[in-house]
């Protein structure tokens, strides 16, 4: 395994800039997810790393070895030592599981116990080796695809939305198994996905792409709690974005006064996560409720929690996420207040 360093990489398709001056460093043995909506260029970035596409400018290096870049003869995919796991797994349909896993091994090593080792790593029983791909479930196919990519001990493993075709329960168990396998083999990994939960829960670092550009790269908690701009905030989880006026470490907005993550001055956009909006059920003790008054418009109940859409008296609509144990009903009058620190964004172009 080795680290992956992408520096100023750009890729165009005709007049469309698919990847625009992207730089990213994935340390040796770590796992990065590239998160973005469809068409943001994340799969193109992955294919550039794999060598299936070549960049117009910029460099891609595995450790100290530049595999593509300005003035360097690009290394073809078959010599880059990347493990590639595409959507749907893409197992070779004419080969059984063992032959699929051994596909990238040298002839001499194909009969070794590497196949059993890999099956064990991806938590599949040893007797799966003689099964054909069409005898496996979607999750099992993805595990075999990962085993196949890991068998030749690649420098980097690249996963292209490998869990998107799985149903919710399989997606979780398969992605956990994949993460454990990558950790156990200490392999550097890059996963591209449009699923924010997947991106946040699996990665050491999340790189957010938008319109071909990398707009933020940080630890999952930082991307969630301190997104680089309101668009990132709204893409990574739900967000309540309200206009406000800041003065030092405090700001006022439709939800009253809030405490900021860092001091600023003037007109700002405030990013509040729905779980920071506390709902006081005023019906319990009507005289003692604290916060801004509003009326519940809609309640979406999920069991473990629920989303409550509230229309404030001034007409502002605010989303709150609260425990599913006790929650208001549509039409109830409630009082809202913000807990925790709030991120403020100055309008574009202001210092």
């Amino acid at each position, binding site marked *: 395994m080795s680290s992956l360093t992408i520096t100023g990489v750009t890729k165009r398709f005709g007049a469309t800039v698919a990847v625009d001056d992207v730089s990213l460093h994935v340390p040796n043995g770590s796992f990065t997810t590239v998160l973005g909506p469809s068409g943001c260029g994340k799969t193109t970035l992955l*294919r550039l790393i*794999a*060598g*299936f*596409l*070549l*960049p*117009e400018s910029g460099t891609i290096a595995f450790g100290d070895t530049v595999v593509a870049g300005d003035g360097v003869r*690009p290394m*073809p*995919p*078959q*010599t*880059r*030592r*990347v*493990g*590639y796991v*595409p959507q749907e797994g*893409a197992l*070779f*349909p*004419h080969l059984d599981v063992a032959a699929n896993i051994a*596909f*990238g091994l040298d002839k001499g090593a194909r009969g070794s116990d590497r196949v059993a080792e890999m099956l064990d790593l991806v938590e599949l029983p040893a007797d799966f080796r003689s099964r054909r791909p069409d005898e496996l479930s979607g999750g099992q196919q993805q595990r075999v*695809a990962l085993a*196949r*990519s890991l068998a*030749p001990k*690649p420098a980097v493993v*690249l996963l292209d939305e490998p869990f998107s075709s799985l149903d919710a329960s399989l997606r979780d168990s398969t992605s956990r198994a994949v993460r454990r396998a990558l950790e156990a083999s200490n392999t550097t990994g890059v996963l591209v996905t449009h699923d924010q939960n997947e991106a946040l829960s699996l990665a050491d670092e999340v790189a957010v792409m938008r319109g071909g550009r990398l707009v933020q790269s940080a630890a999952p908690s930082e991307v969630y709690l301190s997104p680089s701009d309101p668009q990132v905030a709204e893409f990574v989880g739900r967000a309540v974005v309200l206009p406000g006026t800041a003065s030092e470490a405090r700001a006022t907005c439709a939800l009253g006064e809030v405490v900021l993550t860092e001091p600023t001055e003037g007109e700002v956009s405030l990013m509040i996560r729905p779980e920071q909006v506390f709902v006081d059920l005023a019906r319990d003790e009507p005289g003692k409720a604290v916060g801004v008054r509003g009326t519940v418009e809609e309640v979406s109940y999920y069991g473990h929690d629920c989303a409550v859409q509230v229309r404030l008296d001034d007409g502002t609509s605010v989303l709150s996420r609260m425990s599913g144990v006790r929650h208001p009903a549509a039409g109830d009058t409630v009082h809202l207040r913000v807990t925790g620190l709030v991120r403020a964004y100055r309008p574009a172009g202001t210092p």
Partner: protein
Amino acid sequence: MTGRRTPPLLLAAGAAVALLALVPLAYVGTYVVVIGPVDLWHLVARPRIAELLRNTITLAAACMAATAVLGVALAFLVERTDLPGRRYWHGLLVAPLAVPAFVNGYAWVSLDRSVHGFAGAFGVVTLSYYPLVYLPVVAMLRRLDPALEESAWSLGHSRVRTFRSVVLPQLRPALLGGALLVGLHLLAEFGALSLLRFPTFTTAIYDQYGSTFNGAAATAMAGVLVLLCLVLLLADLRLRGDRRYARVGRGAARSVVPLSLGSWRAPALGALVVVVVLALGVPAYSLVKWLVVGTSTQFPVDDLTRALVATVVLALAGAVVTTLAAVPVVWLAVRHRGWASTLIERSTYVANALPGIVVGLALVVASLRLVPAVYQTATLLVAAYAILFLPRAVVTVRAGLEQAPAVLDDVAHSLGVGPLATARRVTLPLIAPSLGAGAALVFLAISTELTATLMLSPIGTRTLATEFWAASSELRYGAAAPYALLLVLVSIPATVLLMRTDGPAAQTQEVPA
């Protein structure tokens, strides 16, 4: 720098195949340009041409309409009613495909000399070609989402109204596609129409070529014939561009509850018996009669064996060459999409509009002028087969390569395996069945090909088809019978293959929109 680069050798191979496929069209086109509009007009604007045009168009239109009605009616009876023994009826209704039209023509003419002219040609051709409509319509009926019909019933539509307003519009691509295929087959038909003494462009071109070797007149007629075929092919292309998927929803497909025929059961069964007797019973009876009681019947085992061996050798050579020629074309079309690849692939489909007679004529003239050494050699004949049957090989091999998506190559490369090893270890094993199926289809088509074989076969080479033709055109019906039987036997595997697919339209005409 870009991604997948098209290998120059592959592009050159594809271009060479496309050029070969375009030789007949280039020949007709060049001729038209060289002769000039005045002379061309003199050759074309003759009463004889007008008569041929009338004959050809009238017969094509009548047969297309008749096969459409017959094909849909039979498909509906077999697929959507509670007719007893539907599975067996399906087999019996497809079986006429195993009887080449010229063998069917022979069967009728040899039994009853009064079967000739327009009525004879219309009857025999309709009975030979209705499965070309029946099969795709059956396939489409099977694929239709029953939920659509159930929705119509729930909205108060009767079975008849539902069929008219919901089912029939969805059958349109299969129905019209099949009917156009009948038209193309009919424009190319030589043997049956010649035996039935109903002159069309194809029979007239052969007569001109055979009796007077009037190249100018034959080529002018070939030009008109190609134009007619192109009109049909363009209509077909346009139609396929509008095709919609039959199933719109997800979930398990169910079959529709069959319509109870009630008191119509006996008349429906009677109609099916009539069709099967006419389309299958008459040729079978005729063959048996001429084999058993025909006064001139002989079983010249040596001649039969020689003809069979010659047929098999030519068909094998043609199948291998045609399938190999299809590979670069398909590889370019699937793996290296672009204008050049599309142009090359579409060029090979031009053969769909080229009857064997035009390909034969073009290669005779082109070889005599450009490479006289190959004239009347097996090489030229195999080249003609390749041009004629490339569309079948391309369609079949393409279907196989589509099943081997490029992402498998990407995965193989990421595992350290180079392009050649990837082709050997991944792609070829995956497309081997379709290569085999393509070669088999071409083999079977060549085995029963008559027109180009008559014009181009080397002196002394006698195939089953040419031997059959020699005997039957001299009214030696008994002598022709064993060859006819072998031709039918050779056609059976192709018919079984077609029964297992979506029908002949899918096998021969599937042009990507």
